């Protein structure tokens, strides 16, 4: 789950947070929500939908949630990691900060929701189609997908999400620390390659499973 990729703010740099005003005129940082509360009902509906689909155990519902959420997860990950990330890296630092303040809170809700919908529906789909059975010819592919998801979970939850949250809390401060933000954002670069490779592996595994 490559939430955001960006080049780091130079260590120790004094970086203007606002732009457009006269030099040296420090405008107040615009307030923003770290967790966008308006998105919570949408998350609740999505999670309830997955639970209902699993409870009814109908193939279409399970397939719908797995394919839609999984496609969004992989697509957004690759798009952010390889398209938006490099673009952000070439933006001015104030523009990058403004963009991050709007993007990162949404990612904080969106990505975990997509991941849990994909995994929950995917597990049930594998069971429905008999792919969990050791005797299934697809069993090895399913286990491979679990390993890929496990690696992505460690990278995303263990490295990216904590950095994401810490950056958002730092940006909430009246005087954010540019050195700290730069240090935390470097993690996105280091992990983009890993998550990108894992997502490509996911595409290979899932298309292989779907066509057998």
């Amino acid at each position: 789950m490559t939430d955001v990729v960006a080049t780091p703010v130079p260590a120790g740099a004094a970086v203007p947070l606002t732009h457009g005003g006269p030099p040296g005129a420090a405008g107040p940082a615009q307030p923003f929500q770290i967790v966008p509360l308006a998105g919570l009902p949408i998350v609740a509906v999505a999670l309830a939908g997955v639970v209902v689909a699993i409870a009814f155990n109908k193939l279409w519902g399970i397939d719908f949630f797995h394919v839609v959420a999984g496609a969004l997860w992989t697509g957004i990950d690759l798009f952010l990691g390889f398209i938006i990330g490099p673009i952000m890296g070439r933006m001015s630092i104030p523009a990058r900060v403004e963009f991050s303040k709007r993007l990162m809170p949404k990612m904080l809700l969106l990505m975990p929701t997509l991941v849990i919908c994909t995994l929950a529906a995917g597990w049930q789909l594998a069971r429905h189609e008999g792919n969990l059975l050791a005797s299934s010819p697809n069993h090895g592919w399913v286990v491979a997908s679990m390993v890929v998801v496990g690696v992505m979970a460690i990278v995303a939850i263990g490295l990216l999400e904590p950095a994401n949250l810490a950056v958002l809390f730092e940006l909430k401060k009246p005087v954010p620390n540019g050195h700290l933000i730069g240090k935390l954002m470097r993690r996105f670069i280091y992990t983009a390659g890993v998550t990108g490779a894992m997502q490509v592996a996911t595409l290979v595994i899932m298309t292989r499973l779907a066509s057998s």
Partner: protein
Amino acid sequence: MSSPEFSAGPDLVNRKLPPVAEIAVLSMALVIAGGIFMAAHLPAHPPLGLAEVLLVLAVVVVVTNVVLLARLRDFAWGSFFLVAKWSLLAYLVIAGMLEFIFVFDGTRGQILFVMSCMLAVFAVNVPMLLAFSVARYQPVP
């Protein structure tokens, strides 16, 4: 041209703290490895020995982390608990959904117990990691 609206103060960045985040990632890796090992065997009865060893190691690591955290004195506990309580709620929902699936699919007995313990470790560990990662950079009141 000086518009120093970002501070460059390195105090909060460079202060020495125990490796709580690194230990939390280790614990997470242990339960994820155990979970994959068990899930790879379901719906048949998985061999529980390796899964239980991984679970016990994960619990030991989490307890170690809690002890290291509890010994911190100059720390932004307000920020820590603010993040911890909301992320705990979120990860309880996630763990609850996974638990629901295993129960729904007929997982029972010792296998369900080990799975549930792994989910519990995961649901406690991640909020601790997130809360520590935020609070370490917050000013101590």
